């Protein structure tokens, strides 16, 4: 396992050759069809949704899209979804429930988009709705953080039966930059923030938030997208089989309890 500091992992996940969902989807799924739109407002390029086979099993895939170049990033808004992105994800998750397909969420976002239109269309409500609805979605949900898991914008695809993280991925309450800017009024202390925030995969396993760490090739995922995709597939194969064996009622109780137990407090007597 990686012995890198969180700030060193930040460099890896920002490496411009780090594979994105556009690389992984064709490597992991067969006959993938993208499905567009939230049916209320529009289609958000920051989240890809669609259906395909995973090793012969039909699944629904919801994935945040980092661009590999400026053009792709313009189309995907640097993986920062608007409310319609979350509403599209919810629509497709409900569809998956109807057709008894497992849902696979691939998380890779600095956070939900912060802008006028996002506020006007209810960014907070859209995220809240997803969190609540995914909690009772009657089909298995597996979430994997591929790179950045930024804040509520990540959690909106992160309410799941099992959370896995790529070895160098991070998952945080706010971006390290935002954290530094609030606490020290100095966004340039981002790396320092990174190292005290406890946001690596190992930290989150320790905190009971992440269940599984998926290894990356030596040197990081960009060394070989194929090898990383293979590792993701191996994990998914196990995880989906495990969850499909369970009855829905049992699954939902376990999902509730997965989040129910997180938190550290004392009760004085």
């Amino acid at each position, binding site marked *: 396992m990686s012995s890198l500091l969180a700030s060193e992992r930040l460099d890896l996940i920002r490496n411009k050759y780090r594979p994105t969902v556009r690389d992984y989807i064709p490597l992991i799924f067969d006959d993938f069809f993208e499905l567009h739109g939230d049916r209320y407002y529009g289609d958000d390029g920051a989240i890809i949704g669609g259906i395909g086979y995973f090793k012969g099993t039909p699944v629904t895939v919801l994935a945040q899209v980092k661009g590999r170049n400026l053009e792709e990033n313009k189309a995907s808004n640097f993986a920062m979804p608007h409310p319609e992105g979350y509403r599209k994800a919810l629509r497709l998750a409900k569809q998956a429930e109807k057709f008894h397909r497992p849902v696979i969420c691939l998380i890779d976002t600095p956070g*939900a988009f*912060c*802008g*006028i239109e*996002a*506020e*006007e*269309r*209810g*960014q*907070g*409500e859209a*995220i*809240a*709705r997803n*969190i*609540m*609805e995914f*909690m*009772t979605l009657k089909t298995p949900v597996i979430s994997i953080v591929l790179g950045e898991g930024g*804040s*509520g914008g990540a*959690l*909106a695809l*992160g*309410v799941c039966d099992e959370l896995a993280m790529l070895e160098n991925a991070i*998952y*945080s*309450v*706010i971006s390290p930059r*935002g*954290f530094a*800017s*609030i*606490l020290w009024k100095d966004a340039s202390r981002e790396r320092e923030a990174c190292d*005290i*925030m*406890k*946001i690596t995969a190992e*930290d*989150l396993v320790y*905190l009971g*938030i992440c269940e599984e760490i998926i290894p990356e090739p030596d040197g990081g995922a960009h060394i070989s997208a194929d090898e990383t995709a293979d590792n993701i597939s191996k994990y998914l194969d196990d995880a989906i089989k495990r969850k499909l064996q369970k009855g829905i009622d049992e699954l939902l109780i376990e*999902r*509730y309890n997965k*989040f*129910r137990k*997180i*938190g*550290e*407090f*004392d*009760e*004085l*007597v």
Partner: protein
Amino acid sequence: MLEDLFSVVKTRFNGDDKSPQKLRKNDIPSDIMFKCPRCSGVSFMDDFISNSKVCPNCGYHSRISAKERLEITIDKGSLIEFDKNMISKNPIDFPDYPEKQAKLREKTKLNDAVVTGEARIRGLRVVIAVMDSRYMMASMGSVVGEKLTRAFEYATQNKLPIIVFTASGGARMQEGTVSLMQMAKTSGAVARHNAAGGLYITVMTDPTTGGVTASFASLGDIIIAEPKVLIGFAGRRVIEGTIKQRLPEDFQSAEFLMEKGFVDMIVERRKIRRTIAHLIKLHGGVKEDE
């Protein structure tokens, strides 16, 4: 998000004055006079307080403590408080967090940023939760998440309506990703209360932002807001930084949110108690002795 809340309050409340903080300190004795941070109007502190801490000039509903909120909302002496002695640990070993908490506990006489319990409103049984912005801007960490979750679970088990007065800067950074997960934990408890057919009323007060807006606050069956309060997901400064221009004054106000379709009604502070009682009755709530 949280990072901007403080500057938002400063810029929105101070208007374009050069150094209003200083002016206020020197010119207006704050124990006798109230200067409204919204309209800058000055009124007697007695008038302000007897008006439930609503600015007599412009109607801005200022922040009040959980204790004050309970006094004007529930039947006198009816509160049976839950989990009064729950205090936070330090899940990510954040520097100085325990010391900061100890100081705040001393100063506010609160153990964290939310008070929960069972109470009566005009004789009707309810579960109530009130967030108190004096405690770390009522940010949500383990204690806020756990107390709210337990309150929802209690309401579900006892088939009671639940009323939550929200106010928050968002998730509590000092507890890291553990805080983020409280959004999922509380929303899960809302989902179960919802599935059991329970009534959940949110009352959004100043300020309701960040991870609280993006979880339980936005999930009420009925969402009430106090006039002119700040409600939003992202912080004003972040958005201004993104779009490189200043936002209109009423952006993210309760009125703005209602216009956009995210708030059911705006209710003045002095009418909230009776409004809640009416709504509970409409949902079949009965008085204890009926």
